């Protein structure tokens, strides 16, 4: 008895069904939370049984370590280490210099390694026949998928150990961290893995084999890269769609922005993948029912995504307020209640449009109640637009008044808008500028930790884990 107690979770009484009882609710409802604990424990064990997961853990340490060590060295050089000229202190932000490159390794891992871990959690059940037993078990599909999702998330949080260790090392070197932008970046990476899990789980549910699911998942990733590229060059709806690809969405968080629309869209896409898996996993479902379920899921998801994309709330959580105007300018802009219409005669590939969009329009959209931007350019590059095409003009319209400017410089554009809105521009108040955080420290001991200690710890843990199961 003692040996069997090894696996006992908190004990509950039996709910065995009387042989003469009609099947019904009593069979399904009792102790569901207890079953869920077992499901969670089981999925965690299945995750730990996955060689792909252990391989991911072995590789993630050196990957993150290399990014971190390179970032700290580069940051030190920019800060004047070794007697070289230092960059302007205001330009030295740990978000850009350390956090984004260090956690960038996770983007690589979640794109190329993590899908195989997630796919296995579904495909192994299908291949071994365990799914036939699971489908008949009382917990039901939503609980099973939830347990798999939570196990994947827990596994990913474990894989975050090297990244979190990098933060500790950075602090130990004397580096600065700004909690809001750090937590925002971590949220971005968390959403990235939720999305990757959803795509991988859906692919594993739809495909017959793990190999097909892997190809489908990588195909999806390559597709989003293509959409990124095309959207950047075409503008319009494609550009709007491209702003929600995993890479673009992560860039928002890397810039220190918290956009509600990005958060909801990414979470909805991830959960949508799990919903699609729930349509395809039941074995007894007819093809037409699966097609109808998929179409209904896609329609519901499209509706949620469209609604989410309309959400305007956004916050600048970066320490250097890179996504904001000065506080005085924002206070003055806050007095404007009328909608602003901007008509831009600049091609999508024109760098001035990129400056205008990132430096001014995206900031305005966060502050003004309504900003409608129309791109009136006729070409992709603007190189061959005629003189009658108004190329280079930017028209601002508010309350029936129109003003044209060709500038994409922040003070000039703001001056145009204040004039158009008849709002007094703020006086120069001498606001405190971001001081920057130069640090000429070397990554002492990091190489030993990331290239030797962490891989050895993972290999030893893996060896101990699999030793008992040979």
């Amino acid at each position: 008895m003692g040996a069997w107690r090894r696996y006992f979770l908190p004990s509950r009484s039996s709910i065995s069904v009387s042989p003469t009882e009609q099947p019904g609710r009593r069979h399904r409802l009792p102790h569901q939370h207890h079953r869920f604990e077992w499901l969670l424990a089981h999925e965690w064990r299945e995750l730990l049984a996955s060689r792909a997961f252990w391989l991911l853990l072995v590789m993630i340490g050196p990957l993150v370590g290399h990014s971190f060590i390179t970032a700290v060295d580069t940051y030190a050089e920019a800060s004047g280490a070794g007697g070289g000229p230092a960059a302007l202190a205001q330009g030295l932000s740990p978000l850009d210099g350390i956090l984004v490159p260090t956690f960038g390794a996770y983007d690589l891992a979640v794109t190329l390694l993590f899908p195989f871990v997630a796919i296995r959690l579904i495909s192994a059940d299908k291949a071994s026949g365990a799914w036939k037993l699971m489908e008949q078990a009382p917990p039901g599909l939503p609980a099973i998928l939830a347990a798999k999702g939570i196990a994947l998330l827990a596994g990913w949080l474990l894989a975050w150990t090297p990244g979190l260790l990098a933060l500790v090392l950075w602090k130990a070197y004397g580096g600065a961290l700004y909690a809001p932008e750090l937590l925002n970046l971590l949220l971005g990476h968390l959403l990235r893995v939720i999305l990757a899990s959803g795509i991988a789980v859906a692919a594993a549910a739809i495909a017959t084999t793990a190999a097909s699911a892997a190809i489908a998942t990588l195909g999806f990733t390559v597709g989003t890269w293509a959409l990124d590229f095309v959207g950047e060059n075409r503008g319009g709806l494609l550009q709007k769609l491209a702003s929600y690809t995993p890479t673009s969405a992560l860039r928002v968080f890397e810039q220190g922005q918290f956009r509600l629309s990005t958060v909801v869209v990414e979470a909805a896409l991830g959960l949508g993948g799990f919903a699609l898996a729930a349509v395809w996993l039941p074995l007894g479902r007819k093809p037409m029912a699966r097609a109808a379920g998929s179409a209904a899921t896609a329609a519901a998801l499209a509706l949620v995504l469209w609604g989410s994309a309309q959400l305007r709330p956004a916050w600048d959580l970066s320490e250097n307020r890179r996504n904001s105007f000065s506080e005085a300018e924002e206070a003055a802009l806050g007095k404007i209640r009328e909608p602003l219409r901007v008509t831009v005669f600049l091609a999508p590939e024109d760098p001035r449009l990129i400056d205008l969009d990132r430096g001014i329009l995206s900031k305005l959209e966060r502050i003004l109640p309504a900003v409608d931007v129309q791109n009136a350019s006729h070409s992709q590059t603007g190189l061959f637009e005629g003189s009658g095409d108004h190329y280079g003009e930017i028209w601002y319209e508010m309350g029936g008044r129109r003003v044209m400017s060709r500038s994409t410089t922040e003070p000039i554009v703001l001056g145009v808008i204040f004039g158009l809105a008849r709002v007094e521009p703020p006086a120069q108040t001498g606001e405190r500028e971001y001081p920057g955080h130069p640090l000429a420290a070397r990554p002492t001991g990091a190489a030993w930790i990331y290239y030797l200690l962490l891989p050895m710890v993972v290999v030893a843990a893996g060896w101990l884990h699999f030793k008992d199961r040979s």
Partner: protein
Amino acid sequence: MLLSVTGVSKQFGRNTVLENAGFSVREGEILGLIGPNGAGKTTLFECLAGLIAADGGTVRFRDSELPPDGRKHALHYLPDTIRPWPDQPVRWVLSFFAALHGRPQGEAQRLAAALKLEGLADSRVGSLSKGESKRLLLGLGLLAPHPLLLLDEPFDGLDFRQTREAMALLRDTQAQGRTLFLSIHQLNDAARVCDRLVLLSRGRVVGEGTLDELRASAGLADGGLEEVFLALT
């Protein structure tokens, strides 16, 4: 009547696997589904369990129609050729399965002892031999608390002694008031353990009843199940 099956059909492409199959399962009996390889036994079980969508037919449980998505509440089907959770030890698989179905852990332990799995408790499922794996599957099937169990080839891979022990275990289960529906291609085994039989040939039910009833419908004065089956197909 515990389960009434009428008109169940299934085609895979142009291949008709089940054709208008119908029969009944009585409360508390051991019913055998007999047929050669390819007769459609597994497909019939998977249709009954709701794991394959049948093209037609109805299933009634205690006089109420049982839709495919409600089958898992009335019956449990144990497939033949699966090897579930191959990376987990036998002990965990039994404990987990018992917990999933709300059975006490002592029941998992009792079945492990009855099926002589205790010595294999720490072995990975993937490392078990065919016979050991079959004993584990039998344990999983009997852990499900459903009034009706569908076991696909429960003796396949077991040696003579193990088959006798498994039969005794199934008789014990029957004595507790549960109903068993076994798919068996070894006619001798079927004749030894089953109270009644359903004969399936090329997807059609060609006979149903006790051995004596089947013998009578085949017009044979004597003879075993093999002769009866040959006469009816």
